[in-house]
């Protein structure tokens, strides 16, 4: 909380607020600058992008045309987006479908030893993914899942599920107990309680959780590059395929990265209002 206390030193408070505001803008701009530079570079010719930084140049969409039309490595633009879209969408839907009942069973009507269960969920994230990649790869090979979209859907679901369960559990815990009791007395069965009462209340939390799952799955690189580097691979792989050993590629890479960022930014923008409320939900009574 910022110091909005009403005292005799109003003037001083005003100045402090102004300075704090200025500081946050400066910090925000510093953080945002690389992104800004990336977008800017995407609209430059390679020669300008690689020259000394210059702000004024003739903008061109040539790099965007090129990265979307040419297949640099093994993967085309539309193919990668198509693969990413489905891997992200299906894994996120699966995560939510599985996490909602799990969160219910860990908060509203806790199962026995729910603390241990909760710890188990998060413990699956303890192992660095690098350490698990070899067994995963062997499993995927033996199940004939290498280079399929399915392997990514399965792994993204598994990867995001613990996080989603944890987040949703904390949102579910905020639902007043009396509301569920009132619904019970009003004759609502379990499904009715969840769909009519609980889910509408935690909708902001659902939006925030789903958005995080989308972001993590969309940006996932390591699993995709190890298990699915060929056909059926995803946008992050496509972005790196624009790194070339011949000639300059900074502008092209910037254009590709900008395109790869757009869907997430878009999703974030759509969910923003709901998400902020969702993230802040636990903070205020």
């Amino acid at each position, binding site marked *: 909380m910022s110091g909005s206390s009403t005292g005799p030193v109003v003037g001083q408070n005003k100045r402090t607020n102004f300075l704090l505001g200025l500081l946050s803008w400066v910090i925000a701009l510093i953080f945002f600058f690389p992104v800004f530079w990336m977008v800017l570079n995407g609209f430059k010719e390679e020669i300008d992008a690689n020259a000394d930084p210059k702000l004024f140049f003739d903008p061109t969409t040539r790099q965007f045309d090129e990265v979307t039309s040419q297949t640099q490595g093994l993967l085309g633009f539309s193919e990668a987006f198509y693969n990413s879209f489905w891997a992200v969408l299906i894994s996120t839907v699966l995560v939510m479908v599985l996490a909602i009942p799990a969160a219910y069973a860990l908060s509203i009507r806790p199962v026995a030893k729910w603390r241990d269960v909760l710890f188990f969920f998060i413990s699956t994230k303890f192992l660095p993914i690098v350490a698990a990649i070899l067994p995963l790869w062997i499993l995927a090979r033996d199940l004939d899942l290498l280079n399929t979209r399915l392997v990514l859907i399965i792994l993204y679901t598994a990867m995001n599920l613990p996080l989603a369960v944890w987040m949703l559990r904390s949102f579910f815990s905020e639902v007043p107990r009396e509301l569920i*009791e009132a619904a019970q*007395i009003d004759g609502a069965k379990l499904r009715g309680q969840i769909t009519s009462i609980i889910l509408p*209340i935690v909708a902001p939390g659902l939006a925030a959780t789903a958005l995080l799952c989308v972001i993590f799955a969309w940006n996932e690189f390591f699993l995709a590059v190890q298990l699915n580097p060929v056909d059926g691979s995803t946008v992050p792989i496509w972005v790196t395929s624009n790194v070339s050993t011949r000639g300059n590629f900074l502008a092209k890479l910037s254009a590709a990265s900008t395109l790869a960022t757009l869907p997430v930014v878009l999703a974030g923008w759509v969910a923003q209002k709901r998400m902020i409320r969702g993230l802040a939900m636990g903070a205020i009574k």
Partner: protein
Amino acid sequence: MAEVRYEKATRIYPGTEIPAVDSLDLDIADGELLVLVGPSGSGKSTALRMLAGLEFVDRGSVYIGDQDVTLSAPQDRDIAMVFQNYALYPSMTVAANMGFALKQQGVSKEERAKRVREAAKILDLEEYLERKPKNLSGGQRQRVAMGRAIVREPQVFLMDEPLSNLDAKLRVQTRTQLADLQARLGVTTVYVTHDQVEAMTMGHRVAVLKDGILQQVAAPRELYRRPVNRFVAGFIGSPAMNLVDVEVSSELLQLAGEDVPLDADVAHALRNGFGGSSTVGIRPEHLALAAEGIPGRVSVVEELGSESFVHVVVKHEGDDLVIVVRDEGETDTARGDDVHVGFRGPVHVFDPDGARLGD
């Protein structure tokens, strides 16, 4: 509509040894408004929740009508409950809140709308039907919570301190409306409150609980006239009854040096009775400032307009003791006055265990 019966109903919360509700035996008649009253932790809410099915019954049984509902789910008990914080569904309009239970029962849309409108009319909520709960005042929310209960026409209403979130004036107003509504609908009602004034003004009968144990269940007047023990005597009545520990010597009890007038049966009980101390209880309205009686000095005068309560410090068995005396409104008595306190009404006597002596 139905009668309600608790039979040795006991609830022991997991991890505790002492029952929150201990062998509760209670019969509630069809159409009766029974108030469960007690201080916090007395088990009154737990008892209500046992009837609602929200709390497990460890021992004993609970009946609604002829049906043993001890193990039934809340959904299957045909009851409606009003919660202290109203528990309105925040994502639904007032109409949807009120119609939710009917929807669960599969009542048709037209029928639902009709019954919601009727209930809204009774509660003066017609113009708010399309609003969300967050856009209502506290009093309106309370009425919606009531509406949600009456739309259902259930067998039993359960009310868990439904007025405690209202401001004082609205609470008094709503109290009478609620009692009137209950009488008109004739639905058996169990009403929980910690406020003894609410209990006395609303209840057809009042059940007083303490530490999970039923102390007394009686009509308000009976409870006031004939409290069965020291706890009920002190709990019922506002301001509270003066309760003074008195050494027993023969059949006379002396309060601050004055003989306490005793009923024959109390005197008889004392004569055949016990040594040690007993407790004398006298309501403020059964004392008066008089020309003679117990001498004392006024420490506080509480003027309520129609009446006033005078706190008098007297010497009792060597110690200072404050007794509260009811006086007329607009009294001339002031702090520091030397006064005498006389008896002018019934005196209650309780034995060392707190049980009432005599009739």
